[in-house]
């Protein structure tokens, strides 16, 4: 499966970003090949960033997004995309994925 996260910089050791739609980077982790993809978030601060971010993850085949507490529009978008939301912890991208996969 594909897990989506947001991070402060483009490495698995970097901390997760505490903003979702306006995070520095979006992360895609593929559990099949344990590969990470980091994409710079080009959001320009406009309205509707939450749903747009969810759309990005949905378009990239995410089944789960590990994220900070999301606003109501992003939650609505995730539900409509059939994407599960998990609350992230304060650690790195790698730690969050490890924690999630343990359960």
């Amino acid at each position, binding site marked *: 499966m594909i897990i989506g996260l947001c991070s402060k910089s483009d490495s698995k050791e970097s901390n997760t970003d505490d903003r979702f739609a306006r995070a520095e980077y979006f992360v895609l982790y593929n559990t099949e090949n344990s590969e990470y993809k980091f994409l710079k978030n080009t959001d320009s601060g406009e309205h*509707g960033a939450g*749903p747009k971010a969810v759309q990005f993850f*949905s378009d990239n085949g995410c089944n789960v997004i590990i994220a900070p507490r999301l606003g109501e529009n992003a939650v609505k*978008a995730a*539900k*409509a*995309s059939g994407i599960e939301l998990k609350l992230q912890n304060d650690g790195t991208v790698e730690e969050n994925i490890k924690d999630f996969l343990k359960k």
Partner: protein
Amino acid sequence: MKLVVLSGKGGVGKTLVSVNLTNVLSEFGKIVHLDCDVEEPNSNIFLKRKIDFTENVDIQIPYADSSKCTKCGLCSENCQFGAISVFKTGTVVFESLCHGCGVCSYICPEKAIKEKSKTIGNISFGEKDNIIFGEGVLKIGEPSGVKVIRKLKNKYPDSDIIITDAPPGASCSVVETLKGADYALVITESTPFGLHDMKAVLEIALKMNIKTGVVINRYDENYKETENYLRAENIEIISKIPFIKEIAEIYSVGGLISSKKEYRKIFLEIAEKTGVLKCLNK
């Protein structure tokens, strides 16, 4: 005559002036008082009119009929606000982002988008003793009060004397309130904040070609910058209200300071100098 009381900075005495001006004018004839500060309307705390009726202010919000939606995405492509998007399970509208413009329902090739009413606020009215009072209230969680202001104003387009309490600031809500005004009465205070924020609203009133005058509240004769600026710009100073603790105290309990003789004359002077009194006496 439509006179709008506004201020760049909040808390400088906009409502103080508007409600007391209305109170004093009501001795001479029928006055309409409109509170357009729809995010935080306060006029009725002072005017205490009983509300006779309330009307909802609705906007049209689209929703997608999933039985007709083919997920073509045309609605999403044409929405300027990111308010409608197509997801796996269907097309979703994000109401807080929606401006109610009508583009998506028009453009949908399957006519799958319908519209429903959403209440964003209400307008209320009451009348007693020469004061016809109208107030708009924006529902909590709604981003913009412009439509509430528009609906409130449309209720009394042709009445004789309308005193309007505008929202503070210099944004689109203020512009909406000012449309059609004959006079913009700008309230400021004797501080650099008051001066700076006054300039923004003066700019709007000027662009809209509305006659403008200024009241300096909490007037401090040691702070000369505001007067110097207004003199240089040729804008009339209508009144200087002194910084008196009693005024703040009466205001704090919802009292009308113009009920006291020594303060009544301040508002009589404003009524005369702005030309409202003359209009009323016609």
